[in-house]
């Protein structure tokens, strides 16, 4: 399979702020490529430059052989973008929205209604086809926005934070739709700040921080980079405020992550530090409820590679405006 997307030295300044910093990568046909990073990392700006919506300050990209700065109309014919905000027309019904998209993309008149009905069926929206877009739930809006993006059979699908703001069931359904689209041969470029989502969906991931790509590889290879780190997870009955500082002062601990009453230690050698950790806890009078040793996951690798706190990745961007 050849490369359908080539990005070369793409850079974007907003005034004096550098949003995207000389990034380069290629994406193969049929691949799900994830762009993983915290909010403000430059993910949306990258996607907008790749679809011809935003002019790069320097560098360029080719999508299906078309230059994104010079052949924007050709690029738009082969792609579909699902933006972070579901932005179909509130006044139009689900069916009308799909037919309107088909008209704009030059789908033949006799095929428009058939394709729209097929997509409504496929996305579980048939019973909502006559409801105005603005009356649909957030999850259904998201589904319809993706369906509208597929009306012209794009080769490449761009998804910008597709599950942001969705409830658990809707997000799960959407992830299944993404995997189904991959099975049909679509190339998918996905931005997300949900590490498990990137791990589940993507063939390869680019970890991006402050507009720069830190690493591009498969989730397995990225995890392998922190294989030498050992992880100890201890569940406690309570968490004294000063415990983290006390534990961090111990030798051999790389990082401590706290999730409610569970503490996860990234250590160089369990043999050397486990005793000291348990002793510190006993001294503080805390009761240990559970002890586990874990293999590093993508979140651990991400933290190790970027130096960022994983809590940063759990903050959803505030979605401005839009008919959500």
């Amino acid at each position, binding site marked *: 399979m050849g490369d359908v997307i080539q990005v070369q030295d793409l850079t974007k300044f907003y005034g004096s702020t550098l949003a995207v910093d000389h990034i380069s990568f290629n994406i193969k046909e049929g691949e799900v490529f994830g762009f993983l990073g915290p909010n403000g990392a430059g993910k949306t700006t990258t996607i907008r430059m790749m679809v011809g*919506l935003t002019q790069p300050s320097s560098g360029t990209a080719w999508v299906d052989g078309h230059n994104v700065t010079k052949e924007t*109309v050709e690029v738009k014919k082969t792609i579909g973008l699902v933006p972070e*905000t579901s*932005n179909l027309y*509130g006044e139009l019904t689900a069916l009308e929205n799909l037919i309107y998209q088909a008209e704009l993309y030059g789908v033949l008149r006799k095929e428009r209604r058939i394709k729209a009905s097929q997509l409504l069926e496929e996305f579980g929206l048939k019973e909502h086809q006559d409801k105005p877009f603005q009356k649909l739930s957030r999850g259904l809006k998201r589904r319809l926005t993706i369906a509208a993006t597929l009306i012209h059979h794009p080769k490449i699908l761009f998804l910008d934070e597709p599950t942001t703001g969705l409830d658990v069931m809707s997000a799960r359904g959407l992830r299944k739709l993404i995997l189904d689209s991959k099975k049909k041969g679509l190339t998918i470029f996905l931005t997300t700040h949900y590490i498990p989502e990137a791990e589940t969906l993507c063939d390869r991931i680019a970890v991006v921080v402050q507009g720069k790509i830190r690493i591009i590889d498969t989730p397995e290879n990225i995890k392998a980079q922190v294989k030498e780190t050992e992880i100890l997870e201890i569940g406690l009955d309570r968490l004294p405020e000063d415990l983290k500082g006390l534990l961090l002062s111990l030798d051999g601990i790389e990082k401590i992550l706290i999730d409610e009453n569970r503490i996860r230690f990234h250590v160089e050698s369990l043999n050397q530090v486990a005793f000291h950790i348990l002793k510190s806890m006993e001294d503080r009078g805390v009761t240990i409820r559970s002890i586990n040793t874990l293999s590093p996951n993508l979140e651990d690798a991400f933290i190790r590679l970027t130096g960022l706190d994983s809590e940063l990745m759990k903050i959803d961007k505030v979605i401005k405006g*839009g008919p959500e």
Partner: protein
Amino acid sequence: MNEIKKAYFIAKKDMGAYYLKPPLISWGLMLPVAFALAFYLRNPAGIKDVTPGLIGMTLLFSSTSMAAIVITFEKRIGALERLLLAPLHTRTILFGKALGSALFGLLITFLIAVAIVAAVGLSIKNVIAFISVIILSALAFSCLGILISVGVKEVFEAMTLSNFFRFPMIFLCGVFLPISSMPFPLPIVSYLLPLTYTVDGLRHCLSTGGTVAPFWTDLLILSAFVFLIFSLSLLMFKKRIRQEF
């Protein structure tokens, strides 16, 4: 041809989503009816003279009503981005927006013109000429609305700015006061306004007298206004896209 078809689809969607709504239609019809009644009550004998002006005003208000806010509104709800993502040239998007507004202006003006012309007992000398003036004027005014829409950032700014253009235009186009009797430099300003040529063209078609230019000059100047205002809107729209996207 394909681009014109896509512009038509944009116009058709805008008509359904924004224009053909009871509040906008009733406002479009009520305003000229109120003006006509006011003129008639003030001077019943002079209503024929002001009929071209009334039709011109109807065109101006109906063709600019939503055009002035449509781009700003769609930018705010995120729908403009969807349009920009479709494989369309910016000129097609803008023409589609102007076309929707012009079609609404034509619909309202047709209803009002038929009613007023019949009520005051005027006859249209040349229907094709009359339709030509109406179509060119609707396009010129809708492009003016679009120009305002691409030039502002907020919906309220669009409303203020469109009234800033529309009301002086009514007073300066020769409906209330003949251009020849206006003090200097107002006649110069009058000759720079598209509504002047709409009213003059309609005067030719309705044979009400008081014309200021030959009929073909009116048509040519209105065509030039359409081209100029659309080109300026396109330049500003492209600049705005570069700045905001």
